[in-house]
């Protein structure tokens, strides 16, 4: 996502240069670079050591995958609050269906996939077909899934560990960097390729960024927007399975850390919550930023209260920054000649 779209109001040359350079992607890339630098130089000198990387990169990897799913939904102008419930359900399915046996893992994964598709379809159909509010729908579906998970899981689980194949795979890495991070990068790149190079992906983008235009062009926009919810749920499920493998003993709190953080990551990636185009790569960087920031605060020994405040502040600042970047010309013009701009002159774009 950029702010390079030509406007009928030709700005001054200096402003155009600014518009060409300052994009949400470039801003979050610089922010991540600075944060990594601060992490190494200020927070802990052992940030880029094997010990830190081996435990941090799996967290980043799962967050990237989950945030990529959230990005699909946010691109439609919705928001998905069923994330924690879906992730937790994945952990329970893996535990219960595989019964710690590697040869039963495949069956568990198939069930995970089916569950995710069903949940995504329910979310998508309720939001896009019945035109219900996504916040309420996904919250309600999340509650349903959470309750169902408790019943499905039962009071006392006989098995508490995921199969060794899954935990070994999720715990593997090279040079201290978890394979989960590489997998997540691949997921983000595939999502980018899908959205920009594959016809269904481009139609999904069109259906999200300009739904009416897409409909007039003959695109079945509603169906593609439902697809966004399904893809998102599958991404949460994939992240959930990997998180379960990485934790080894997933419990009913497995998905809790991903609710606010996944939204923050997408916003930091330059998305606006009213919908529009999203960049999986920028979302990836947003996920890196929010995970490393939280990690740094933990390393510094800050309490959960401080970390929540920081997450909330980052979300607010990120949203403000996206607004400013996407409306920079109009803001500048408004500052220079406030009377020439109508009260509606400065308004968030949804590209």
């Amino acid at each position: 996502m950029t702010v390079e779209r030509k406007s009928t109001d030709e700005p001054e040359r200096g402003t155009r240069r600014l518009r060409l350079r300052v994009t949400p992607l470039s801003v979050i890339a610089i922010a991540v670079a600075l944060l990594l630098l601060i992490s190494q130089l200020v927070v802990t000198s052992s940030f880029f050591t094997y010990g830190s990387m081996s435990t941090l990169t799996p967290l980043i990897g799962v967050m990237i995958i989950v945030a990529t799913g959230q990005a699909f939904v946010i691109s439609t102008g919705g928001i998905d609050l069923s994330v924690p419930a879906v992730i937790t359900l994945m952990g329970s399915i893996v535990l219960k269906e595989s019964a710690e046996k590697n040869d039963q893992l495949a069956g568990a994964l198939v069930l995970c996939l089916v569950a995710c598709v069903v949940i995504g379809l329910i979310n998508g159909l309720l939001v896009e077909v019945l035109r219900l509010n996504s916040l309420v729908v996904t919250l309600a579906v999340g509650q349903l899934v959470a309750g169902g998970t408790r019943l499905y899981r039962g009071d006392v689980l006989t098995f508490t560990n995921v199969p060794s194949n899954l935990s070994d795979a999720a715990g593997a890495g090279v040079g201290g960097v978890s394979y989960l991070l590489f997998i997540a990068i691949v997921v983000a790149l595939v999502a980018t390729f899908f959205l920009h190079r594959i016809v269904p992906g481009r139609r999904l983008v069109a259906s999200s960024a300009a739904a009416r235009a897409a409909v007039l062009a003959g695109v079945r926009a509603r169906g593609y927007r439902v697809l966004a919810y399904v893809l998102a749920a599958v991404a949460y499920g994939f992240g959930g399975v990997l998180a379960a493998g990485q934790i080894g003993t997933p419990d009913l709190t497995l998905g809790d850390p991903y609710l606010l953080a996944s939204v923050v990551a997408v916003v930091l990636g330059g998305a606006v919550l009213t919908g529009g185009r999203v960049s999986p790569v920028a979302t990836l960087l947003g996920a890196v930023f929010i995970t490393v920031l939280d990690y740094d605060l933990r390393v510094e020994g800050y309490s959960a209260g401080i970390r929540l405040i920081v997450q909330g502040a980052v979300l607010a600042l990120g949203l403000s920054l996206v607004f400013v970047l996407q409306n920079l010309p109009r803001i500048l013009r408004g500052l220079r000649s406030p009377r020439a701009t109508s009260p509606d002159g400065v308004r968030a774009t949804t590209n």
Partner: protein
Amino acid sequence: MSGDRSTHAHRLRRSPALAVACAGALALLVMVGCGSDNGSSTSTASGGETSTSATGEGSTTAAGGGSTVSAADLQKTVDTALNTDAVTADSLPPLMKEALERATPAPDQATMDKAFDCWQKSSCTVGNGDITLALADGFGDNTWRKFSKMNMILQALTYPEVGKIITTNAHGQLAKFQSDVRSLTAQGVKGIAVYNDFGPAAYPALTAAQRAGAVVSTYTGPNDGAPTSAITTRVQPDICEAGKTMAAATKEAVGDAPVAYFTGTPGNPQDTAWQKCATEAGLNPVFKADTNWTPAGAQTAASALIASGKPAKAILYSYSNPVPNIVRTFNKANKPVPAIITWTQDNGTSCQWKKDPYTLYQTNAR
């Protein structure tokens, strides 16, 4: 279990859970009108060494008004419940002795079926008695709490005066816990057994319940300084003593080396209390982290400790359940596992330790 790969002798196993739950249930039942004592009582119980005291006219009469339990069988129960053979049944306070007498006979199949039915449901009718008994658990999700729930149900079933049992689980949410207690009061519950995970924050709800005519008895959770308006009886460990015991175990394991404190939910009164006493006992915490008592939280906390570079040689953590995640994190980072000092016990932790030993102390609260 010796040298640097040892586990502490005092353990809070299922059997002490039996002792705690039985004592709690009995104390509550006595207060709501079962048995022969209507006086107020205060009990403290622990796994390794139990000191229970009862004031008033504590009854030692077992179920049905007369004990049919042989002294040998009772002693066997006492040994199992307290995880030691150093305490004789006759030396126990009357209240606790009666609780264990009631727990001694093996329940018949019908009783077990009824107990299992109650354990699965949130409400069940067990007889024609006019007393409705409730268990309000602040966080009833781990195995220990589920065992405690069953222990309490089985104990309650020995009282014909109990007609209905209701159980609630707040899943660690204070607002739900308060709502649960209000709901129980509205249903006319006469006695509420409570695991109070929320400390003083729960007292207003408990006070309101007692004002409405219910009797509240707590077990194990942090209730120091609780007003009598909130709690009538309590069976609980000395949290401060737990901190001191953990400090002693830490010194045995790593001497005066710096340590890390892992906390459950931020600011919870239980962790605050034992950490304060452990520090006063001479420990030097150089790192603190919240875990929310979850495996993922413990893993992230361990990861942050590794990244911090702080030279903590031991991790003190009240909850044993997520310890395997801490150990796995250190193993994954190719770092030596610090001594783990915890005052609860978990099967997963014990199995992991047995498979790949490290310095583990599972102390107990007195």
